[in-house]
Every structure is written in C-alpha cells, then in structure tokens.
C-alpha cells in the first residue's frame, strides 16, 4: 500500500477558507508548498511505514452497509446489560446491626438495619464521556487533612464537603442520572420493594482448607500424624501432569470479599432515624459500608413511585444545579490561582471578607 498523505496536508485544498483563498490569489505559492508540511514529521529518522497511521476495522462494516449490528463493542455491551441494570441509582449505607420485627400474627421476621449518613450524589457518568451511565454517590464526612490534594480539588469543584466513601451505581440510561449534590434519604426506597444489598463479608484471616472450602480433613486415628486438618493431595503425580491445576482450592485468606444478598424486601424506611430496614441478613460486621440498589431479578418499583421520588428530590434541592455551577466557577478561579502560586492572596481576601483583622487571628488547627 502506498504511503498516505496525512490529512493536515490536503485538508486545506479541500475546504479553502476565504482567507486562504485570498492569500492564494495574492501570493500564489507553489502547489508543493501547500501539500507538504513545513516541518518534517515523517522520514526515515522517525521510523517509516507504508501502513496507514491507524487501522480502521470498521471501514467496510458501516451501519449503512446493511450488515447486522455488531455483537461486541461498547454499544453492544450496554444493550446486553440493559435488562440487568437497575433504572435508578442506589445508595450507600452503614450496617447498624440486626433486630427483628414481630408480626401481628405471631410471626417473627429477622431484619438488618442500614443507616444512610449524608448520602449525596457526587457525579454522573455518561455514555458519551465514560462509556456507561452511572451515578457516583458519597457517604459520610471526612476531615480535610485526611484527604489528598487531588480529591480536595474534586470535592471543591462539586461544592461538597469531602465524603468518607464514594461508590458508583450503574443505571440503565440517561433518565437514571441525578443532579449533583442532592441528598438521598431512606424514602428513596419504599416499603415492600426488593433490593440487592452488597457488602464485604467478615474477614476471617488465613484459614485452612477445612474452614475455607469445607474439605473433609483426615482421620483422627489409624496412625494419622500431624495431618488431621490437612487438605490432602493437590494433584496427580507423574503421568497425570505432575502439576497443580489452576484454580485448585487451597488454604488462604478467607472472607472480606464482596457478597451480594439478592431480592431482600424492604420492611421499613424512616427519614427521622435515617434508616432502611431490610429483611434477613447482610454480609459484613456492624459499621461496614453497604450498597443498596433496586433488585435486578425483581420488577423495579412502580413508574409512579420513581417519578414521585425524583420530584421530591427536585423539591428538596431546587438550586442544586446553580450550586454546582457556582462551585465549578469558583474551583476554576482557585485552580488558576494555585497554578500561579497566588493562592495566598485569595486567602487573605477571603479571610478579610469573613471578619476584620482575621489574618492575624490564630488559625484553627485541624
């Protein structure tokens, strides 16, 4: 294949602007001057190839060519996961412990109490910029001196206090995205709906084969010596491969892995206590962080409820968008100042604004 001319060489020829036309009329440069770049970017010195600079696998498989839609790639992946992606974002919560609900008929339902602590939306991920739709949600609070500079800048741009944890919740499409900075309360869910709850299980430390994988162990007697809880052989010997097959279950770290409890009914939501109570147990110790989202394998909440809860958010936080814009503007200003090393000036100005003579005032130590 013959070497291709880079686009920048002939683009001007194809779309002559008015200015370049007039220039061409007046100066009349030679065609070779227009075609060739001024500075050498290609040549033996920089490596040379006859292949096009970038392969185009879809060159002959355009959408217009009547071929079936590709079954791989980002678009296909999104389409494939459409049915198993919840419509709404979930929330982060803290596991507070287990209790029971006593029914009127004498039934007893064990349940887990999950508390929402200042759960706010922090960012939206979109198909255009990230390849998928998701809502980033933050929980709790964190001291500023416990946060690194990059994240301090991130929260500054959002107009939010630093959060303890951030997590993403995939949503099906654009309609699942939320305004940044709104606070999600327990009434984001309703009693009777199903949720999936994810958390990291209790860490058990280094555990043997019997505890970790339920191996049988070995005999207590019959001449057994020092291998009562041993895992036994790990594979065949010569002839059978004489190696340990990949994935062989062996002793090792047990627990502290993500466990999803699917289809838990919501028994109670209480905004005053900030809690969502779900039926049954949830992995992890008390105080662990859990993710609650609409169940994947059950029908989603009714469309009316989804719309109503969105409306409630808009009603509670009518100026979320304005706050975000203002915070972004402020962030850009401060960022520029930081770049120029003039942040001290801003601080001085800000402090004077806060109170007279505050520059000399003792600073609060964190």
């Amino acid at each position, binding site marked *: 294949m013959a070497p291709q001319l880079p686009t920048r060489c002939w683009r001007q020829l194809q779309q002559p602007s008015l200015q370049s036309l007039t220039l061409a009329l007046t100066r009349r440069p030679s065609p070779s001057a227009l075609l060739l770049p001024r500075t050498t970017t290609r040549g033996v010195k920089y490596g040379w190839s006859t292949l096009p600079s970038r392969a185009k696998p879809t060159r002959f498989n355009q959408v217009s060519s009547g071929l079936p839609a590709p079954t791989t790639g980002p678009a296909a992946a999104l389409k494939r996961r459409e049915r198993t992606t919840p419509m709404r974002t979930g929330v982060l919560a803290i596991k*507070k412990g287990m*209790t*029971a609900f006593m029914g009127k008929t004498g039934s*007893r339902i064990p349940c887990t109490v999950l508390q929402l602590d200042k759960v706010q939306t922090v960012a939206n991920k979109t198909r255009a910029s990230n390849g998928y739709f998701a809502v980033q949600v933050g929980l709790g609070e964190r001291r500023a001196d416990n946060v690194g*500079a990059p994240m301090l800048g991130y929260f500054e741009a959002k107009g939010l206090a630093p959060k303890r944890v951030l997590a993403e919740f995939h949503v099906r499409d654009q309609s699942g995205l939320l305004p940044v900075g709104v606070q999600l309360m327990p009434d984001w869910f309703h009693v009777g709906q199903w949720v999936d709850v994810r958390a990291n299980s209790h860490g058990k430390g280094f555990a043997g084969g019997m505890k970790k994988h339920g191996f049988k162990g070995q005999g207590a007697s019959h001449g057994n010596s020092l291998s009562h809880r041993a895992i036994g052989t790990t594979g065949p010997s010569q002839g059978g491969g004489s190696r340990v097959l990949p994935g062989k279950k062996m002793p090792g770290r047990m627990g502290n892995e993500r466990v999803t409890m699917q289809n838990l009914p919501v028994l109670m939501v209480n*905004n005053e206590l900030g809690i969502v109570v779900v039926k049954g147990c949830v992995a992890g110790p008390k105080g662990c962080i859990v993710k609650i989202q609409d169940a994947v394998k059950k029908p989603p909440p009714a469309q009316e409820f989804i719309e109503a809860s969105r409306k409630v958010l808009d009603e509670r936080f009518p100026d979320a968008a304005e706050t975000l814009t203002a915070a972004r503007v402020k962030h850009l200003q*401060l960022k520029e100042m930081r770049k120029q090393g003039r942040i001290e000036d801003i601080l001085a100005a800000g402090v004077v604004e806060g109170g007279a003579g505050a520059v000399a005032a003792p600073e609060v130590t*964190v």
Partner: protein
Amino acid sequence: MNAAPLARRPLGCLKASLRQARQQRAPAFLARQLSTVTPKVPSTGALPEHNFFRMIDKKTKKTRSAFAIYAQPPPVPVTTAAKATAAKATVLPAPPPDPMPLLDAEQIKRMDPTGARTALFTKTRYAARVGDVLQVTHRRGGEPFAGVCLAIRRNGIDTAILLRNHLSKVGVEMWYKIYNRNVAGIEIVKRRAKRARRAKLTYMRQPKHDMGSVADLVFAWKKTRKVIGSRAGAGKGVQAVGKKRK
C-alpha cells in the same frame, strides 16, 4: 526492701523534663505547620458556606496550596406532601448516630403497649430472674408450658427466655420470645429461694443439678391461686401479662 535504689534515684533531672516539654509541644507545633483551616466564608448566592484548608510547606513555612472546603449538607427540608400530613418541622432532624435503641423502643411500644412484658423482665426486685419457675400461656390455646428459667437473652424486641421442664421423664427446653404475639401471658410459678450467681444456668441440664419435672410446683401454685382467688373474689394472677387467661 528497695529502699536503697529508691533513695539513690534523683527526684528530677533536666533531661527528663526537657524531653517531656518537647513531647508536649511537638504535635501542636507540627500540626500547625502542616495544615490549617481559615475562618468560614459565609455563603454567597448559590455558593454554600466554606472555609479554606491550607497545606503549608514544611521548609519555607508558606502556604503551598489551599482548597475550599464546603460545609456539611444542611438539614433536608420536609416536602410539602409530608408537611400536609403530619410533620410540623420544616427540616428533618439529623439522624441519631445509633438508631438501634430508638427502633427497639418503638417496636417494644407497639408490641407491648401496657409495658407489662417489659416490666416482668427489667432488672428490678419483683422481676422474673433465672432460676425462677415460669409458665408461658399460648395465644392459640394449647397446654401452657411451665419450666425453670435457665437463661434470659436480653436483646430489645428480640428478648427471649429459655424454660426447661421434664415431660414424660424427657428433658424439654423451649425458647420463648417475650414480645411475640403468640405468647399470651407469662406467670411466675415459684421464685428461686436464693439469687442465682450465674447469668445462664446451663449446669441445670446435668443430672446432678437437674430440677426434673415442675408439674408438682405448678399444681401447688394453681391450688394456692384458687384459694386466694376465691377469697379475693377474682381469679386474676398477679404476674399475668398480656391477655387475660380464659
């Protein structure tokens, strides 16, 4: 004994006091150098209230960088729909750090409006304790179950008692959730003569300590109650909780 070394030890020395002074001073000094926050800047327009967090260079002692730290989110306003129904407050109160006791209290109030069940097992002089012989009456009829109380598992709404008895010479143990609707009443048949010095009387399962059947105790108690009842003109049990027995 150790008089000689004690006498030799000096009462104080410069080195020790200096070391102490240095230790006391160091953290605050270091912290001030590393990071500080400025007084708050009030909210202007859409921008919420914030202050600045400074990062101070250790060597030059100058502000290396600073970031705006926004205030924690304000209380969430109550929606108009909720306002119309009941709530008078315009904002939701901050949730308590530990909701479990409040949730428990709420549940107990719902399941035990009179407070009789709670009173029977709160740690007072008149409360039931381990070692007492108790009788549980079921809501849907059936034979009441009596037995010696081996354990009280105190866990809010989930509080339960373990009763042990012998039925046809076989040891039988039953756990009862005291706030369960199926438990119609709990009565003290016989108090233990002396306070048990264990919280869980599991040793009473051993043949040596096993109380055996409590049927005769229950029989005697019923007899006395009838006598008292006939004298008083009413058949009420003093410790009866929940629904009245028919």
